[in-house]
Every structure is written in structure tokens, then in C-alpha cells.
């Protein structure tokens, strides 16, 4: 469950099966959808909580380990999907923790790079508190997404975990501006 606070308040709820809901508390509207790609298991936090750091959840998407080697002193693994049209994914590890991930198109072009850093231990879980995604378009343009995790707490009680979409929530009307 994710609560977005700014600039708009929304609840995002997803389970491991891919059942996904978006809820607007101000309008009491909800959008529900099912798709395996929306599964909570694809979230970065979920991946590290479940210890699936070895492939960053790629196995769930159908990827298989194709090659393992060393580069510049780091372990590097290459994952490929049975569908040749899907990108190859290379992951670089430092002390068994992934620090770098790149998606390479079938034409050999790097379309996305992910950098993971500032690893910290929280109980049994090690989590990168900083993630930087760089997606490359045509030419010299790129898009940068920075994700920073802070105030991480585990094994704690929080009323937010008890949240559920009200039974009287209306289907979300996405053909009108949000309030």
C-alpha cells in the first residue's frame, strides 16, 4: 500500500497477484485493475524485502540468467528473455548487492540505466536508499527519475496498514479533472 501525499493525495494498493487499485479519498473514487506487471512483487522494496536481489525480480518477468562474468572487479550477470524482442538486462554487483542495472535493446542500444546506492541494513533486510533511473530516448535526450527512501521502519505498527478502500467508493471517472 502506497500513500501519495503531494501534490495530490492518492492511495495505491497492489497485491502479489497483480490486483491493483487507485483510490482518491477526496472524491471517494477507485480504479481497479488486474495485471501481473502491477504485482507488488515488482516493487523495488518488495524485491529487497523478499531477498530476490540476485535478479531484481527479472525471473518473475520471464527472464533467465544467460551469462555471468567479472568486469572491472565487479560481478556482472546478463539476463535474457525468451522473446528476442525484449531487452537484455545486465546487472553489476558489489559485494553481492546490485549497484547497476542496464537494459539493452535488441539493436544493442542502452535504453535504461538504473543505479542503486546508499545501502543500509534494516533488520534482516538490506535496502538501497537511493535509486536513479535514466531512460534514453532518441538523440541526446534522456529522462531521469530519482527515488530516495527515508525514515524506513520495519516490524512496526501503523494505521496506514489497516487501510482499505471503502465499500461505497465509486468507480473513478478519469474523464474529468481531479479535484
Amino acid at each position: 500500500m502506497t500513500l501519495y501525499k503531494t501534490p495530490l493525495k492518492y492511495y495505491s494498493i497492489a497485491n502479489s497477484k497483480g490486483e491493483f487499485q487507485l483510490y482518491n479519498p477526496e472524491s471517494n473514487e477507485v480504479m481497479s485493475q488486474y495485471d501481473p506487471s502491477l504485482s507488488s512483487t515488482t516493487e523495488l522494496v518488495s524485491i529487497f524485502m523478499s531477498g530476490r536481489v540476485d535478479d531484481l525480480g527479472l525471473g518473475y518477468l520471464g527472464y533467465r540468467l544467460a551469462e555471468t562474468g567479472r568486469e572491472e572487479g565487479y560481478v556482472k550477470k546478463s539476463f535474457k528473455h525468451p522473446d528476442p524482442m525484449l531487452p537484455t538486462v545486465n546487472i553489476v554487483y558489489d559485494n553481492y548487492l546490485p549497484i547497476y542495472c542496464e537494459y539493452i535493446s535488441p539493436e544493442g542500444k542502452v535504453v535504461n540505466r538504473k543505479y542503486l546506492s546508499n545501502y543500509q541494513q534494516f533488520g534482516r533486510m538490506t535496502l538501497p536508499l537511493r535509486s536513479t533511473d535514466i531512460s534514453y530516448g532518441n538523440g541526446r535526450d534522456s529522462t531521469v527519475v530519482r527515488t530516495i527512501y527515508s525514515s524506513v521502519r520495519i516490524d512496526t505498527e501503523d494505521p496506514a496498514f489497516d487501510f482499505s478502500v471503502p465499500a461505497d467508493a465509486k468507480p473513478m471517472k478519469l474523464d474529468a479533472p481531479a479535484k
Partner: protein
Amino acid sequence: MKKLVLSLIAVCAFAFAANAASFTVNDSAIDALIENSTEVFTAEFMTPAPAASVAPAKGEINTTTAFLLSWLLGGFGVHRHYLGTTPWMWAVYTFTGGGLGVLWGIDTLFIFLDLIGVGEGYLNKFINCEKIIAWI
């Protein structure tokens, strides 16, 4: 001879340090980039989706436009609405970060391949597609 060996070691050490940096990013530069960027309020993208539920005729679709929308605004699913999809698709893209970046990146790749004629027909996968992963 000793100087040559020391120089060689220094060059190798420098080369190693420079190449090792290829797997890390300059966090300060990224922070500065974001701090100096212009904030766009999300609600600006929540205007009524014109004809989002109306299936576009294939002849009305411009591949270049679809590619530009995917490349520039793909993280918000704008290209999917241009090509015809369910009214809520923008929300899926926006609140999942463009499908963790993978969905958006692969969408852009397929549309680009269709645009340059290498993947002719790839764009058809997206037209009036209600599936989140259009290319499967």
C-alpha cells in the same frame, strides 16, 4: 626501469578508477539537475482525456507523433491514450513510474522501431490496446 614500472602502475590505477565509475552515477549532479528543473503539476495532465474511449482510426495516427509522445511523456502514458486505450491507462503509468521504467522504455523502443521501418507493424500492437503490456 623503475620509473617506467611505476608510471605503468599509475596509468593502470587511474584507468581502473575511471572505468569503475561507469557503474556509479554522480549523485550531486543528479540532485542539482532535479533541483534546477521546472516542476509540472500532475493535475495539468489530468484534463479530460479527449476521445480516450473513442477508438482512433488507423489513418488518423501519426507514428512520429506517437513516438514523440512516448519519448517525452511516456512516463504518464500519454502515448497510450493517443493510440487508443482504456481511460485509466494514464494512472497506471503515472503511479507506477511508467511501469518501473521498463514498460515505458519498451513502448518507446517498439514505436521507434516501427517509425524507422525496422519493426513494421509494431505500432499496431498499441492501437486500441486495452492491455497494460501492449507488446505481449
